[in-house]
């Protein structure tokens, strides 16, 4: 179920500014691959090219053996490439269950049939069940009838993760899932991601080094849009250049 992701020579420019400099990555199925780098290294831009928000100027993105470079966000999502956003993006006016059920159903349904214009969304037993499983998996314990817009910050992030999980992903792109969280909340998310490891391929962009080092199978260090080094946590920890450029600035 877990799929592979590969990029070949991705290049992205904003005018004359080179933001992604010939990035070639290989994400193995089932691994948890973290991408770290100083602020401004171009991590979010890279993620945007993986999920489809941005089209690279040069280079290709391969997902599950297929070239998805020209594919839209929704097409990649239907293929199993799901993403969570740095700034939480959910349906504020819908309930928790409605959010997750819509995610579960949307990815399954194409094309639409007449039922979809009449029967209630929440009447679809299969979609609801998948939604509830995903909500549980994401560790969200609120009343599923609660309005998404009224949830606390951490719960909203969990809901977003639940939506990604409900959509039957084979690869999860997580853009700073622990941003803005307390130490305790971060630990909870780390534990959660540990559970998801292996089941899905996970690409994790994060600043929280504790989490990164305890979770990642491999880590890629991005500096000025270039891949500086890819290796296991041990190799990263001991790599002199990496230490100088990045880890030296952060308290590990």
């Amino acid at each position, binding site marked *: 179920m877990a799929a592979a992701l590969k990029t070949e020579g991705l290049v992205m420019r904003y005018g004359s500014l080179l933001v992604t400099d010939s990035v070639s990555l290989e994400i193995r199925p089932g691994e948890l691959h973290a991408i770290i780098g100083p602020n401004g290294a171009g991590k979010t831009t890279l993620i945007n090219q993986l*999920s489809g928000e941005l089209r690279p100027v040069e280079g290709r993105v391969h997902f599950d053996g297929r070239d998805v470079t020209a594919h*839209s*966000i*929704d097409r990649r*999502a*239907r293929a199993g490439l*799901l*993403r969570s*956003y740095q700034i939480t*993006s*959910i*349906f*504020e*006016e*819908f309930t928790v269950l*409605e959010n997750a059920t*819509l*995610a579960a*159903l*949307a*990815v399954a*349904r*194409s094309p*639409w049939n007449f*039922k*979809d*214009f*009449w*029967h*209630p*969304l*929440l009447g*679809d037993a299969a979609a609801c069940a998948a939604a509830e499983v995903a909500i549980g998996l994401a560790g969200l314990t609120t009343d599923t009838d609660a309005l998404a817009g009224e949830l606390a910050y951490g719960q909203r992030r969990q809901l977003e993760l639940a*939506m*990604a999980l409900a*959509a039957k992903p084979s690869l999860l792109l997580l853009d700073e899932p622990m941003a803005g969280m307390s130490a305790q909340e971060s630990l909870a998310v780390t534990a959660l991601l540990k559970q998801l490891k292996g089941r899905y391929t996970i690409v994790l962009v994060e600043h929280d080094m504790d989490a990164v080092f305890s979770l990642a199978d491999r880590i890629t260090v991005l500096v000025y849009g270039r891949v500086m080094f890819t290796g296991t946590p041990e190799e990263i920890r001991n790599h002199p250049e990496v230490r100088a450029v990045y880890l030296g600035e952060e308290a590990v």
Partner: protein
Amino acid sequence: MSISKLMRPATLVPLILFAGLLAVPILAQAAGELFWISFFTRILIYAIAASALNLALGFGGLVSFGHALFLGLGSYAVALPAAHGIDSGWLHLLLSLGVCSVVALAVGAISLRTSGMSFIMITLAFAQMGYFLLVSLKQYGGDDGLAIATTSRFAAGVDLGGSLTLYGSAWLLLALLTGWIAKLRQSPFGMALRGARQNARRVQAIGLAPRRVQLAAFVLSGAICGLAGMLLANMNAYASPSTLAWTVSGDLIVMVVLGGMGTVFGPLLGALAFLGVEEWLKSYTEHWMIIFGPLIVLMALLGRGGLIGLLQRLDQPLAAKAAPAPPDAVVVQKGHV
């Protein structure tokens, strides 16, 4: 729907109004005041048109300033065949639905390539285009419009030219439409559409193309509005380019917002209130628009939720929390992806 939900003002009042509307023809005939039948027929027809717009605007967040186009096309779908002696109601119906669907598909596909502000202007421009096209058809009345010799006839002697038949048909259509929209609102398509208004990017992220959902809603909306146009033509026994005037599009938007955007019963309340206030003001002065205009400005300044929102606030216990935001009335998306 549970009994408790039924008893809430926001649901109960509209249902009572629906029932009341059914009694209008009986009461009007008894009182010998037949004017009321045509007055309320007009309200029913505009409620249908407003419901259609509500699909695109209230649910989908698409500010279409050109829905009068579909109202007009629907009425000409009756007038043009009638001018050639074709009075089959089924043909009128088919033509109305068909033409409006195709036009809505074209207009929607082009307009949805742009963002919020441009979308408004472009839909306005397309309606204007339709207006000029019809005005230029001199052989079909042009500026003066086209009288309808034979109104829509269906089987078993059902003729929409008859005022009671028309009233009943309009009421029935509105009732069925309202019932369907209530279901649609909670259906996968309806939820996806409402989701696209709230957060288009999130819709993409779960594997749907928001533009496609919105286009489908726009086509549905246009087709249903065409039905209202068909009824309008039968009511007036006349089709006129003035139906496509931009002010008509504006009136429809006011009705949707006044009633309560994105709600099920909003369009009915909006049409009732709009045409009711208009009629009331007309009885005082021929210059009623000088009062009506500022009223609309006031409505815009005071914020939305509309009449349904008002009824919903009546439902809240007085002591408890502050009035909650009425559903779907919070954000009209400025741009879609």
